[in-house]
């Protein structure tokens, strides 16, 4: 029994780390800009294609691609917020939702147009190298993804808690006028925040592709889980996103084990419903006023 459950839990943690990373980006953007970024999944898809083509055309290893894709997507996120989202939302928060939704539709359909709906994968020489952890054997890329996602979370936490930018981001998140009056550039800070959130998604793409695939629709599966993760963790909570991402990965793996592989995600949404019923502010969220 244990010899089945433990590998499932470990495997679930590795998936959960990716969920957490995607959710960290989402929760950062939500927590600061107070917008639900519907384009998050599309940006993940775009990053997956980026990683795919870097490997397929230039032969660049996905982990090496981190050094390219993450900065590029940071800039892309910055420009999207500053040049598109804030411009087309005309200063109204309710418009932002529509603009990000429009972005998602445009990006998804462009991807479909240019790259068709074919499922693409890459095969790395070390994709099936197994790492032995107690009774479990975990593919090396998944172990890397787990460790890297945690490292990314720590880096994010350090940025937010220790740096001048992090303090400015937290200040703008809750007291925009006060931030303006100490001389913080609010638009720039918003865009930095969107850039960092998008960079999270790009990092997730690099860690994900070695054991996954990419299609123009691939973002949906992740973003749905990421939304669940964010709500479960408490909207805007970093620690919450991390813990609940890992938790959902494990729940999914265990449901997959006991109910059959294809039913794994049922557990995630069941957990979501239960949380909404009994603790709507999430595990780490402040109680709603």
């Amino acid at each position, binding site marked *: 029994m244990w010899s089945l459950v433990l590998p499932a839990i470990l495997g679930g943690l590795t998936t959960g780390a990716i969920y957490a990373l995607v959710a960290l980006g989402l929760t950062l953007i939500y927590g600061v800009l107070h917008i639900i970024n519907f384009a998050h999944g599309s940006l993940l898809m775009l990053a997956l294609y980026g990683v795919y083509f870097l490997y397929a055309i230039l032969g660049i290893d996905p982990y090496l691609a981190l050094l390219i894709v993450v900065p590029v997507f940071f800039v892309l996120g910055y420009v999207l917020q500053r040049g598109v989202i804030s411009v087309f939302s005309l200063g109204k928060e309710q418009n932002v939702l529509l603009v990000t939704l429009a972005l998602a539709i445009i990006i998804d359909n462009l991807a479909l147009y240019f790259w068709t709906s074919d499922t693409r994968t890459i095969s790395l020489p070390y994709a099936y190298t197994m790492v032995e952890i107690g009774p479990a054997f975990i593919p090396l890329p998944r172990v890397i993804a787990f460790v890297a996602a945690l490292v990314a979370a720590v880096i994010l936490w350090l940025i937010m808690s220790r740096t*001048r930018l992090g*303090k*400015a981001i*937290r*200040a703008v*998140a*809750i*007291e925009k*006028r*006060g*931030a*303006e*009056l*100490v*001389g*913080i*550039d609010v638009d720039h800070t918003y865009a930095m925040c969107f850039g960092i959130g998008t960079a999270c998604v790009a990092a997730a793409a690099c860690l994900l592709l070695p054991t996954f695939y990419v299609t123009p629709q691939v973002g949906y599966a992740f973003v749905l889980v990421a939304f669940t993760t964010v709500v479960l963790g408490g909207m805007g909570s970093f620690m919450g996103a991390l813990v609940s991402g890992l938790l959902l990965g494990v729940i999914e793996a265990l449901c997959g084990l006991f109910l059959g592989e294809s039913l794994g995600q049922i557990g995630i949404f069941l957990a979501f419903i239960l949380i909404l019923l009994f603790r709507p502010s999430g595990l780490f969220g402040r109680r709603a006023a």
Partner: protein
Amino acid sequence: MLEVNGIKAGYGPVNVLQGISMTIGDGEIVAVLGSNGVGKSTLNNVISGIIKPREGTVRFDTVDITGASPRAVVDAGILQVPEGRRIFPNLSVKENLELGAYRRARERMAVNFERMCTIFPRLRERLGQLAGTLSGGEQQMLAIGRGLMAEPRLLILDEPSLGLSPLMVEEMFNLVQRISQEGLAILLVEQNVVQSLAIASRAYVLEQGRFALEGPSGDMLADPRLRKTYLGL
């Protein structure tokens, strides 16, 4: 050092300020008095670059800062401590003070931080605490401390005594007088007429979008119109 000339400003179809002119000299405390909703905060926000005026100019040290961004106004040396304090409740007291030096006097942050802890001993005891958990008076102290961290040349205080206990109000006005002795100019916006006039050298009274009265504080206290409207005498 500050020269406001013929400012008109408002929101949408509403005109709030209808031609405001005033000056503040070096190291001077100037009070702007007026009841709720006459446009005192609007004036502050025009000076701070939050609201663009429809007409008129704002000059600081003869540099035109009309319509400049809030950042540029901070760079020039004007810091506003806004109505309702607007401290960062989710940040620690220490972080709030540090953010005060976000654009100005960053290299002297440590020195100024120590200075704030001396001026506001109560903040020193609470440096690690989240600012949102402070009492109203402490939050006001923090807001002023945050403003001073930037080494402003002109400090705008928007109703600093609002919502404080009588004892705290007393302490607040003493404090304002004390920090002005270090040489910075202060624009004190208040509804608290008597105590403001006691520490200000000059005052303006805002009514219906214009300054209805202006002059040295001593003259103002003696003015029968002011006594009648604002002091009920």
